[in-house]
């Protein structure tokens, strides 16, 4: 189902691109800077995440820079606190556009801690 939705999104985006618009407009992140510079992030965020995953799960290293939970806290939509849900949501938007499957959020919370607690979606 989700794959299909992603496929449709990709199609729609492709259609939009063909009609003249370019890459999707993504939710604006919180803060000034990312954990690395934006170009590095665009290129290598999957490697950072994969590395961090083993560091945290197996070695118990917490509060690390490349934490997936950290990405969500900064990149969530300001209203609903999520990184998935529409073509402008940060992770989904770009992934649907790039047609890269993103299954991490089958398990990982796609919303900020605040949104889960029913409070304001994202800290300003």
């Amino acid at each position, binding site marked *: 189902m989700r794959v299909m939705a992603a496929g449709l999104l990709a199609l729609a985006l492709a259609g939009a691109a063909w009609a003249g618009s370019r890459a999707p407009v993504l939710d604006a992140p919180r803060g000034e800077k990312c954990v690395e510079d934006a170009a590095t992030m665009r290129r290598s965020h999957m490697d950072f995440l994969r590395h961090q995953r083993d560091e945290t799960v197996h070695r118990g*290293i917490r509060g690390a820079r490349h934490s997936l939970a950290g990405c969500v806290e900064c990149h969530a939509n300001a209203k609903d606190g999520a990184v998935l849900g529409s073509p402008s949501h940060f992770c989904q938007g770009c992934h649907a556009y790039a047609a890269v499957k993103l299954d991490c959020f*089958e398990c990982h919370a796609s919303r900020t801690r*605040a949104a889960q607690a029913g409070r304001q979606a994202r800290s300003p």
Partner: protein
Amino acid sequence: MNPIDTSRRAFLGRTAAFAGVALAPGVLLYEFAAAREAGQEASAAVRWGMLVDTTRCASGCTACVDACNAEHGVPKASRPTDAQWIRKVELKDLRTGAVRSAPVMCQHCAEPPCVDVCPTGASFKRADGIVLVDRHTCIGCRYCMMACPYKARSFVHEPTTGQKTDTPRGKGCVESCNLCAHRVDRGEKPACVDACSAAGHRAIVFGDLNDPSSEIALRVRSVATSQLRADLRTDNGVRYQGL
């Protein structure tokens, strides 16, 4: 929404996110006195364990189970396919008729059978004795569940919703009590332990079995405790008193 509250949370969130770059400020160190600093790994000098005092555990009380469900976003179990991280077992001594009550969860064995049988190495024991499933390499074969002597593990049979940030969980993998690794790493106790104290029973003691001065080590030395299925010599991190 309390503005002060919000900014404090933002501060903490940002600190956590940047802790690898900038050293955590003193406030943070003070607040989580026993926590490992960011970037520091779990230590093999520590062996986390729990002591369940069955003489204090109240029959019918499910505070620990409820707290666990809330902490990890695990729905209350009602069907054979629902996940069970911790359960209350009511016991009756077959000879004396004495009744006892005790929670049973992953026993965090030093020699865990689940780790031995796991084909991919997804079941593993962290340096500090916590037995975990790496859900990134678990293929869902369920051999660990066949091997576990305590029915401590559950397979996620359905798609999940409403996960908590600290407890990702999803369909097709095996999961179990993780001794609240995320809380322990922050210097807190597992949710069940706090809930049991809050309910006034104080039947679960959590601590470092390797630290001779810890309450749990003192208790294990001074009173008779037992391990479940001690005959299997799995050397459990969870001990029981009064069985």
